[in-house]
């Protein structure tokens, strides 16, 4: 499993939820310490690996300051997907105070991983906050909002159409999306 946590210390977690009680570890996590920025997933193969299972679970949690629900959601989703047979190495997790740049870079990395798949399945879970633009249901566009500050800056939001454009899942790759936002 690849896990990217966005913190001021730039840290990765790769093994914590594959061994031992997930919640025990996560409850100690101090969200107030989380300030900034970045780690990109690197080194994905550009071409399909012959041993690739062609299945991937992308779990993204984007809490605002002090919120714990998104982290708990992510843990529960991980657990139930493991029960359904997903292997630890089939998960990519992005968690923390996100920005537009971080999420889009994450999605572009995912695209590099799945772009050559002839077929497959991608599970995409997002827990965070949503936003809408438009004046009527007919012209509304939905997006993701990474801050409670008003007005949000462009860097604090991403529209779903941009998410799909960055992901660019091949036509024969089925994407199952569950946005809790």
């Amino acid at each position: 499993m690849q896990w990217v946590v966005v913190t001021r210390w730039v840290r990765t977690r790769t093994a914590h939820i594959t061994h031992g009680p997930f919640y025990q570890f996560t409850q100690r996590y101090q969200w107030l310490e989380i300030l900034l920025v970045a780690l990109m997933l690197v080194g994905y193969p550009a071409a399909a690996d012959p041993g690739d299972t062609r299945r991937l679970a992308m779990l993204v949690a984007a809490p605002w300051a002090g919120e714990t629900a998104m982290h708990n959601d992510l843990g529960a989703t991980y657990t139930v997907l493991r029960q359904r047979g997903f292997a630890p190495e089939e998960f990519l997790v992005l968690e923390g105070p996100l920005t537009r740049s971080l999420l889009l870079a994450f999605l572009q990395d995912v695209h590099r991983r799945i772009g050559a798949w002839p077929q497959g399945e991608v599970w995409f879970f997002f827990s965070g906050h949503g936003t809408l633009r438009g004046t009527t249901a007919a012209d509304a566009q939905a997006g993701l909002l990474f801050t409670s500050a008003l007005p949000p800056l462009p860097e604090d939001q991403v529209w779903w159409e941009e998410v799909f454009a960055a992901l660019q899942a091949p036509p024969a790759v089925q994407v199952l999306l569950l946005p809790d936002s």
Partner: protein
Amino acid sequence: MPANVVALVMQAPAGAELTCRARNYQFEQQDNPQERGVISYYATQSLAQATTVASWLEQIETLAQADLQQERLPWFYQLSLQILGQAATRLPGDPMHIESEQRR
């Protein structure tokens, strides 16, 4: 939304104002209160046994409705979800079978 995407999303009542409707709630889990997204909570509670997106939604609604009726979930948090895309799409992974089903 691209044709190869199937999504389970909140739906707004006709004529309702445009606003974000996903909410968090403190659920009791093994006697411990835990803050969860309402959608995520019911989605994960029902996912293990679901086979298709349609059956998953059905189980989510059944669980949430039961909690509403038994007042474990306030009505304010009532879910209204819809499927965008092919409802018959098989869910990734293998559904778990509960013991009672296996014995039949």
